[in-house]
């Protein structure tokens, strides 16, 4: 028993040996520089979680208010926030889409239309030039035509209303007059001859033909450049460049045959250049 007491006493002395002053000074200096962590770990975690949740809520609401969320998320945000009296846009449902050239099918947007056309073996570039699925307000603005309502802009897209129907006589004259009032004069003059031809593979969709190359003159040339360089809506906004003639020559067949994408371009171009 005495031996054990002696052992424990020797062990306790080991724990009472003071730390050397130089070592204690070094440690205490380092400890003084340490910034303490106030509060408990749980409190800190709860605060971080709450801040994250609030940030997520505010950020999500802000994105929903800006209508930049993906459509499904925007729809959910619309429905959810409507319950608490906050109105945000309902995704893409509120944007009117052009249905011309869609063939009776409803497409969510232009990209979906082009994709479906490409998947079904159609010419993707031809489909890309179709107005189908494009937002109406965008089409109106980009085309450079007069500011119009979406419905009016739709009327100026593609073939004129009498192109695919057998309008004759007074009905055709009325349609032409309405077209002229809405979209300008060129389209009426250009398209009062006959219906557009069916599109050929590798060519642009049918457009008013016949004398369009003659009547449209510049617009036929513009269409030629449009064939080469992309969307005609962009070309329509450009001033008549010197290259237009070159394109007109090279694409003279297009101008003559009238195989142009849309009448919108021709009308807007005509109005631009004429104006």
């Amino acid at each position, binding site marked *: 028993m005495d*031996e*054990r007491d*002696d*052992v*424990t006493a*020797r*062990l*306790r*002395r*080991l*724990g*009472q*040996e*003071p*730390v*050397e002053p*130089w*070592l*204690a000074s*070094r*440690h*205490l200096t*380092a*400890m*003084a520089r*340490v*910034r*303490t*962590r*106030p*509060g*408990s*770990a749980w409190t800190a975690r709860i605060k971080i979680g709450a801040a994250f949740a609030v940030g997520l809520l505010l950020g999500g609401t802000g994105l929903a208010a800006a209508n930049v969320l993906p459509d499904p998320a925007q729809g959910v945000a619309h429905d959810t926030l409507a319950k608490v009296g906050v109105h945000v846009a309902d995704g893409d449902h509120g944007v009117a889409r052009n249905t011309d050239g869609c063939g009776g099918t409803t497409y969510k947007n232009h990209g979906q239309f082009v994709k479906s056309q490409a998947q079904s073996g159609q010419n993707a570039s031809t489909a890309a030039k179709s107005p189908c699925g494009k937002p109406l307000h965008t089409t109106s603005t980009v085309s450079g035509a007069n500011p119009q309502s979406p419905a009016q802009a739709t009327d100026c897209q593609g073939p004129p209303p009498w192109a695919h129907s057998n309008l004759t006589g007074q009905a055709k004259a009325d349609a032409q007059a309405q077209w002229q009032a809405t979209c300008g004069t060129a389209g009426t003059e250009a398209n009062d001859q006959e219906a557009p031809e069916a599109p050929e593979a590798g060519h642009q969709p049918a457009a008013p033909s016949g004398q369009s190359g003659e009547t449209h003159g510049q617009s036929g040339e513009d269409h030629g450049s449009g064939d080469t360089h992309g969307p005609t809506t962009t070309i329509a906004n450009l001033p008549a460049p010197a290259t237009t003639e070159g394109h007109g020559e090279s694409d003279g067949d297009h101008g003559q045959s009238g195989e142009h994408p849309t009448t919108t371009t021709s009308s807007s171009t005509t109005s631009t250049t004429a104006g």
Partner: protein
Amino acid sequence: MVLDAGDVYRALSPAVLGYLRAQRAPDPEDLLGEIFLQVARDIARFSGDDDSLRRWVFTVAHHRLVDERRRRARRPAAADDPLPDRPANPAAEPVDPELMAALGQLTPEQREVVVLRFIGDLPLEAVARITKRKVGAVKALQHRALEQLARILGTGGDAHIDDG
């Protein structure tokens, strides 16, 4: 009650250093500094009496020692490691070389218990909590450890010190 880390260091650093040396911790002086740096960082979150404070500090020391041993086991020191830039402190020699050698002959479990119990001056319950053992197991380990230490130190034969 607002605790000052410096006061805690002055009160408990001798016991913690003795614990580290008796456990044959690698570089016990540096490890002591790391332990009390953590104590200084976390002391604002501590609440309790002096016994709880002692138990908490030794819990930190125990975990740091285990971590350090694991780290060194994963990456053993290479023979061509650069030498330390400061000379070894002569005062770092163990106070009781004979006792230190005798502790080295105990099993790690026995040494852990007896060091926490007497050098750390912790009650059996606190040692049981730190070592995650039952109090009865701690008591048994303590009994066998003291018995063996007494035998070694009493006879002197097994406690022969080779390393000074």
